[in-house]
């Protein structure tokens, strides 16, 4: 049973607390440019969507990495991990990821990619809206499915 960082864009209010929590956890300061999660807002629609590494099972970044710096973790389930020591900063992972979820940060000479903060993702803790959830893979879509199921419950409920 592994945990998944699930995104619920419908609940996102565009507050960027996730970015602040991520950058603070990794750098001890507030630099949203350094955040591994990025929340994009479309002001006209008033809609924001947070995006971070989806820890792909068959990850493009792992496939292209020449040194094995990008690798599936042997110790933690459902995590594509980054080995800073063997990474040569070729940036092939950033080219390969189709979602743009790995990026090279010149300021710190690192590859920025969600690492789920040792299994207790800060973005999830700081999100005030439940738009980010760290949840057992079995329960990943439960909240969403149940919310809709509840509409049927209301429709069919007998009134005494």
């Amino acid at each position, binding site marked *: 049973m592994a945990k998944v960082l699930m995104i619920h864009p*419908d609940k996102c*209010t*565009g*507050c*960027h*607390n996730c970015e*602040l*929590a991520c*950058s*603070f956890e990794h*750098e*001890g*300061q*507030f*630099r*949203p*440019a*350094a955040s591994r999660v990025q929340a*994009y*807002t479309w*002001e*006209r*629609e*008033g*809609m924001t969507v947070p995006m971070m590494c989806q820890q792909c099972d068959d990850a493009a970044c792992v496939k292209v990495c020449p040194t094995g710096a990008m690798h599936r973790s042997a110790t933690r389930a459902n995590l594509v991990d980054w080995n800073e020591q063997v990474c040569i900063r070729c940036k092939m992972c950033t080219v390969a990821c189709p979602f743009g979820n790995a990026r090279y940060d010149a*300021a710190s000479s690192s590859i920025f990619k969600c690492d789920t903060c040792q299994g207790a993702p800060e973005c999830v803790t*700081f999100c*005030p*809206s439940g738009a980010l959830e760290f949840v057992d893979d079995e329960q990943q879509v439960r909240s969403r499915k149940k919310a809709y199921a509840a509409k049927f419950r209301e429709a069919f409920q007998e009134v005494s």
Partner: protein
Amino acid sequence: MFGWTGTILRVDLTKGTITREATDPKLARDYLGARGLGGHILRSEVDPKTDSLGPDNKLVFAPGPFTGTFAPSAGRFNVVTKGPLNGVLAASNSGGSFGPELKYAGYDALIIEGKAAKPVYLWIKDDQIEIRDAAAIWGHNTLDTTDLVRAETDEDAKVSCIGPAGEHQALLACIMNEMHRAAGRTGVGAVMGSKNLKAIAVSGSGAVKVADPERFKAAVMKARKLIQAHPVGGAGLKAYGTDVLVNILNQVGALPTRNYQDGYFPTADKTGGESLAAKQLVRPKGCFSCIISCGRVTKVDNPAYAGYGEGPEYESAWGFGSDCGIDDLDAITKANFLCNEYGIDTISLGSTIACAMELFERGFITAKDTDGVQLTFGNVAAMVEMTRKAGEGEGFGAKLAQGSYRLAESYGHPEYSMTCKKQEMPAYDPRGVQGIGLNYATGNRGGCHVRGYTIAIEVLQNGAVMDPRITEGKAGLDITFQNLTAALDSAGACLFSTFGIGAPELAEMLSAVTGVEYSVDEFMKIGERIWNQERLWNLTQGYTTADDTLPERLLKDPIKTGPAKGEVNRLGEMLPEYYQLRGWDDKGVPSKAKLKELSLN
């Protein structure tokens, strides 16, 4: 520096020069930032006699030390200038994301001086600053302006801009950021327009540093818990928005109706937050670092008033609603969208239209004056049309855009302008709630509720309760609120965080961020300093104790119907004690001893 960036950016639009200065740590410590620091800059650098729409006025955009951190709901900034509406030391507060971006670009304040020869916009990318030609953007509404500026700078740049109202230098013009957030009041948008400055785009890749990260995180987690546990901060505002206030003010009998002719509006429920949530709400929205999410993303399907945007807030729903005798929420929401697009203050414009409606119904103006429109209370189409005209500066709308004081005075009846110091009072009838009346009368920028929101105690039971009908103790209540709010505003926090936290939590977070140890007393003293600083400026404008008053209507004409029927505001019972507790003389002038105590000159 921690919390602060240590740099102030100064742009002279006349000379086209850009300079950087170090933030004075002593000033930062004593004035915090935003409203306080901006106010100090104005007092130090601008001659009080300056024409507010002339090149010698300065326009300061300033975030606070919290801005850009995850202090809960603390991502705000202020626009500070000499306010064209009434000459005061105007400080207009806004949320969104613009303030934090200024911090990430590296700035504690942006000071705009002079006047550009032709329309320009400013592009700030970290330490690369450009003054660029805005000829192709001038004339556009704030939504299109934002898109156009982004297309030329960065698609994710945060943009603060004026719309047509600011370009026309309308006294009610505001400055919009992120399309839907407003530095709304006192005509700050007109100052930006008078400088030929159409927009400011900012992109910042830097960091805001924290002095004691562990202490800060602990303080923030605690503050978040308190706000989330609070029924308002934790749930109510997200569910219903500020518009939820319509019904409670109405049930108390203090919902100003038809230009403050009454305090009760029978069909008010149609314009309240419950109705908004059921009909127009798309989803809630939060400003940068916010955990409260009071923002409303809304749409109107009714083809007559179709639109999509944000709002209305309570004040806006009131201004275009009960104050105009209107209960059509689609139309009210549309008026709000128009104000955002044109960049004009919803509170003042709603109240000004209401004033015009009363003048019209009393026969002091006719359809000849109003471009043929029957501008009567309850005329929904007229209200929306006049809103649009005001934004455009078209016909009678151009007069409306100058505010109700000048409008009513021009027709020989200033007594129908519901203003204090020429700025329109918001949506709480002081005849039904005594303490807010004292706040309106003594407010440093004129009619304003946020500067000393005693409603929280007098009506909303937030942590304490005081009978709204009595005057005892209201002077002390007002002063506490005014001081706390001034410090809170200057730190970059949102007023709504006080639904959950107060001075102790704010002082603790501030200490942890900046590394400067602030006690609760020191925090409140900073607020008192900032309040007095604004008062000193206003004295230079010729404001005297005679101006610390309310319209005659509120002192003499009782509310006609509803639960507060028969009440008037008894300002005279509160004002002397207010001056005394403030350490001012009986003319409302801060004493030398008080100024010395606050290190103010």
